[in-house]
Each structure stands twice: as C-alpha cells, then as structure tokens.
C-alpha cells in the first residue's frame, strides 16, 4: 500500500514536471486565496532550476556560498542540502541520498496569495520575491510554504527566502549556489528559451525529472534529475542531529539523536 502510494506520487511528480512546461498563464485576478497578478521582471522569461542529483556530492558549498552572498543570519538557510542515510531493511546496505533544497519558485506559489500586504509577490519571470520594506513579519507565508523554504530573518524581522539570486541574474551573473557548485549539479536558466542549457537538458531528460511534493499542486520550478521517488514527498526519515542550547537559548553544540 505504502509502496503503491509512493509510486503513484512518483508518477505524479513526473507528470507535474511535464505540465510545468506549458505556461500556466491566466491565474491572475480572482477570489480569495487565488494568485494575484504578477509584477516586475521580464515576462518573456521563466527562470527555473534543474538539479542533477547524480552530480551532487553533498559538500554544502552552495549552502555556504548562499549564506555569504545573501547574508542570512546564523542558523537560517535559503538553501541546504538534506543528507539522508538510507538503510535497506532487508539487506542492511547503507546508501546516502543528497537532496539540495531551496525555494521552488512555484508556478502556483501558496506563499503569495496569503501575504496580507502584497510584500511577497511573483515576478513575471516566475521568481518569487519578498519586499522586506513592506513585509510586516506576520509569517503567514512561512506557514503556507509546503517546503519550509521560508523563514523569518532575525536581523530584518521580515520573511526571507531564496530569490534565485535575482539581484545577480538581473545583471547577468549566475546565482551564488550555481557558481560555487563543484559538480555543476545546479543548472539555472530560462525555460522559455529552447536553446538554454536548462531547456535542452529538460527536453533530453523529460521523463526522468521530478519535483518535490507534487500532490500540493504548487507546480515547483526546481526540477530534480536522478531523484529517488520515495524522497519526493515527506520521506519517512527521522532527524538525527539536533542543536543543543544552554539555558539562555544560546547554541552550544550538536547532539546525535538515537546514536
């Protein structure tokens, strides 16, 4: 049953990856909790990222470079590479699974319509951004994102998340995480341009691409190649490392749970 369900989800993941190639145009202007109109950005483009998991070695170079580039406070991350230790119960074999996570710049982002002050919005090129001058820090968007891609930045006290490094893309640079990836696992580009590297790779690997949590109907635009479909939705994993804090709540170290 569980396996069947997960296989089904895996198929859904593939379907959704395919469906995303058809531009969802007329989402704008409707009732409560519908997507508001997009604004700013180049409407002739649609940025997306393809992550080739076969190339990812879990070095966290992206995590670090993003952290430096975007000045996230200590302990908060716009991107992180989840690392799973997977044990086959029958054979006892152990394998490792790397899963870089970041904002999926969803085509139907649930974080956008919830924002009560229009601080979170989607640009015409698909990038979901936060105007932190307008954000009231209600954290509604943090709750609405199914991927935990958002957090309240403790320095600015406003919502923060991956922006696909829009400030770099807009001046022709690559995002910090893409630039620093040792294996070239992260490919970003315009999927409306059929000649872009990402478009060519998506065409080539079309049937093997997966997105996270397709059942949420968010139509993510971070596509994974070489993904184990059991990790598409909440994997049955337990977190192993917790940070340890002293009485004042200051972080003093890490602890392995159940080891």
């Amino acid at each position: 049953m569980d396996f069947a369900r997960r296989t089904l989800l895996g198929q859904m993941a593939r379907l959704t990856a395919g469906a995303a190639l058809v531009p969802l145009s007329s989402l704008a202007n409707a009732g409560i909790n519908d997507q508001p109109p997009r604004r700013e950005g180049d409407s002739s483009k649609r940025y997306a990222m393809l992550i080739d998991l076969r190339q990812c070695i879990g070095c966290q170079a992206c995590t670090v470079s993003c952290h430096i580039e975007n000045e996230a406070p200590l302990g908060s991350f716009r991107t992180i590479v989840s690392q799973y230790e997977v044990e086959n119960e029958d054979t006892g074999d152990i394998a490792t699974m790397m899963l870089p996570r970041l904002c999926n710049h969803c085509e139907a982002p649930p974080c956008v319509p919830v924002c009560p002050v229009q601080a979170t919005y989607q640009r015409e090129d698909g990038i979901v951004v936060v105007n932190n001058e307008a954000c009231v820090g209600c954290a509604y968007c943090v709750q609405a994102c199914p991927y935990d891609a958002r957090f309240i930045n403790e320095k600015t006290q406003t919502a923060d998340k991956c922006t696909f490094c829009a400030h770099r893309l807009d001046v022709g640079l690559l995002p910090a995480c893409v630039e620093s990836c040792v294996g070239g696992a992260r490919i970003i580009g315009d999927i409306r341009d059929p000649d872009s590297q990402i478009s060519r790779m998506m065409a080539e690997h079309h049937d093997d691409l997966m997105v996270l949590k397709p059942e949420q109907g968010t139509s993510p635009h971070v596509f994974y190649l070489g993904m184990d479909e059991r990790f598409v939705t909440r994997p049955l994993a337990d977190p192993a490392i917790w940070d340890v804090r002293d009485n004042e709540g200051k972080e003093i170290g890490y602890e392995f749970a159940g080891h």
Partner: protein
Amino acid sequence: MSLLATEILTPRYELAWYPWAVQYFFMIAISYSALMLSLPGLVFRRERFLPLARLALLVAVTCTLVGPVALLADLHQPARFWHFYASPAPWSWMSIGAVLLPPYVVLTILYGYFAWRPALVTRGAEGQGWDAKLARLLCLGNWQTPQLAVIVFGALAALFACGIMLYTGAEIAILASRPLWNTNWLPVMFVLTGLIAASGLVMLLNRLMAGANADVYRQGLKVILVAILGAAVVAATWFIQGMTGYSPSVQAALESVRHNPDWTAIAAWALSAGVVLFLVTVAMLRAPKWQRWAWLLGLLAIHMGWAFRWLVLMEVQTVAKNTAGYYHLAVEAGSYGLLGIIGTFGLWLAVLLIIDILVPWRDVNNARSATY
C-alpha cells in the same frame, strides 16, 4: 522494499508564529462567543437571559480590547501594522481579517457603551462621590440613551462577529502545507471550543463577580452541552474521514502524527477532558443542587478552549514539513514566550478590573434603558 532513513543534518526551524497567536485566537474567540451569549438578553430582550447577558457583555468587551494587542505582538514588525491598510490584498484571508477587525472592535465597544450608559446615568445622578463624578464624565454629556442603539450596535457587532469567526478559521484552514490545519472542520471547531471557553469564563465570573446567579449557571451549562456534543461530532467525522481515506488531507494529517507518543498522549488527554466535561455538564443539569460548582467546571471549559488553540497553532508547527520527523518546540521565557502568555492574561485582568470600577455593568436593565 522497505527503507530506514535518517536525516543526518537538520537545520533549526524556528516557530514562525509565537504563543501570542494562541492568545489572539483565544481572546477573539471568547470575544465573539460571549457577544453571541449576550444577544438573547440584550438584543432580543429576553428577561431571563439578562443576568447571562450582563456577564457575557463584560467578557466580550474586555476580550475584544485585549485580543488585538496580542495580534499586534505576534507580528515581527508591529510598527508596520498600517501596511495592512496601505496595501491591502483582498485575496488574502489575513488581509480580509485586518479589514474586519477594527469595525468589529468599535461596534462591540459601542454596543457595550450603549448598554451600560443608562446605568452610568443612574450612578452619575447619585451623589457627589468620585464614582458618580466619573460616571457623569463617561456619560459624555446630557442626552437620552437612544433606545434602539443597543439593538442596532449589538446586531451589527454580531454580524461582524460572524466575519471574525469565518476569517480566523479560514485563515488557518486554507493552508494546505499543513494537513492538520487543512480541513473545513477547523473553523467549526474554533467556534465550538470558543463557545465552550466563553461559557466557562462567564460561569467563573458569575461566581466571582455576580453572586453566583443560578440562571447563569444553568444557561452556561446548556451552551457547553450543545457545543461539546457538536465538537464530538465534528472530531469523530474528521477522524473517520481520515481513517477511511475519504479525505486525503485528513489522512495525511493523521499519518503525520500517528507514531508520535506525544500526540497520542495529547489525543488521549483531549478525549478524556471532553468526556469529563460532557458527563459533569449532564450531571449538573440533571441535579441542580450541584450547579453551584459549575464555576469549577468553567475552569475546565476555559482550559479546553485554550489548549485546543495551543495544540492547533503551536504543536502543529512542530511537525516537520520536509521529513517525517518533528521540530523541537521550546517556549522560551521572555516577551515571545511565557511572558507573552502571562502578559496577555494580566492585561485582560487589568482591563476587567478597570471596567468593573468604572462601569456599573451589574445594573444593566432593559426596562430602564427605555426610560433614560
């Protein structure tokens, strides 16, 4: 093939909504529920509901004043609250709530004011003491209290109260990211547990401030009985929807907490508290001589209303979104944690005592409001 997976590295995920949110949802639910409890006595003018209405109005006004303070405190940028009105987002439930809340607060205060004014006039006419002087001040001049004002403002406040019920519930229930929230039953449950808590608080204050009126106890118990039965039906339906897979979202919700001993304990506790509340309520309604202890049951009712919101808003945030694990919930001391919880209750108590000093709320009387 089965797998055992361990997530080796887990970043720290902070709670995005603080206990302030629980306080707001609790206060505002008591506010709209108490407002409803005051309607039979003050708007429909049924004499036998007047003692209940006096207490319910006091509860409604005090909670309406304190609730929005907690809401403001839950914003990480409280000074920017005016952005809600400068750039509204009509597609966001929270934005709709921001539009509904101020008129609701104003209407509730007006409703209370016009209900209390005749009694203020009476007190102002009695002698030269400081309380009489204050009462004259609060009368805002020498004019007759319009007879219809209580009814009109009461009815309008009740209308907006329905809006508050809808938005506070919908705001949470639309969040598909958290299956435990994503159910249409949640708004219904908020209202039912709100009624339970409001009745409990009215019964408690009945003992502490209004001489333990027997009618108030009986009426409060009846409201609790109806609400707890409703809550039981809702909870059972939700559970069955999940178990049978009728609702995939509820199924996912149950699945997300199934193997967690904390959640099993919470479920067991909620079930027994509900059963105790139900049985004692029935017993008290059947044996009126026990009703003088109804205020004690009121404490349990208040606790249920609060704990339900704590469970829904705080505990649910600890269910990890990306793995099958849980985040750590640490309620810290300081203004975002314990202090916030205690502070809200303290503020409410202060407001209650101030109104008790300023306003002769016990003397609200329909007949008299017609003559002044």
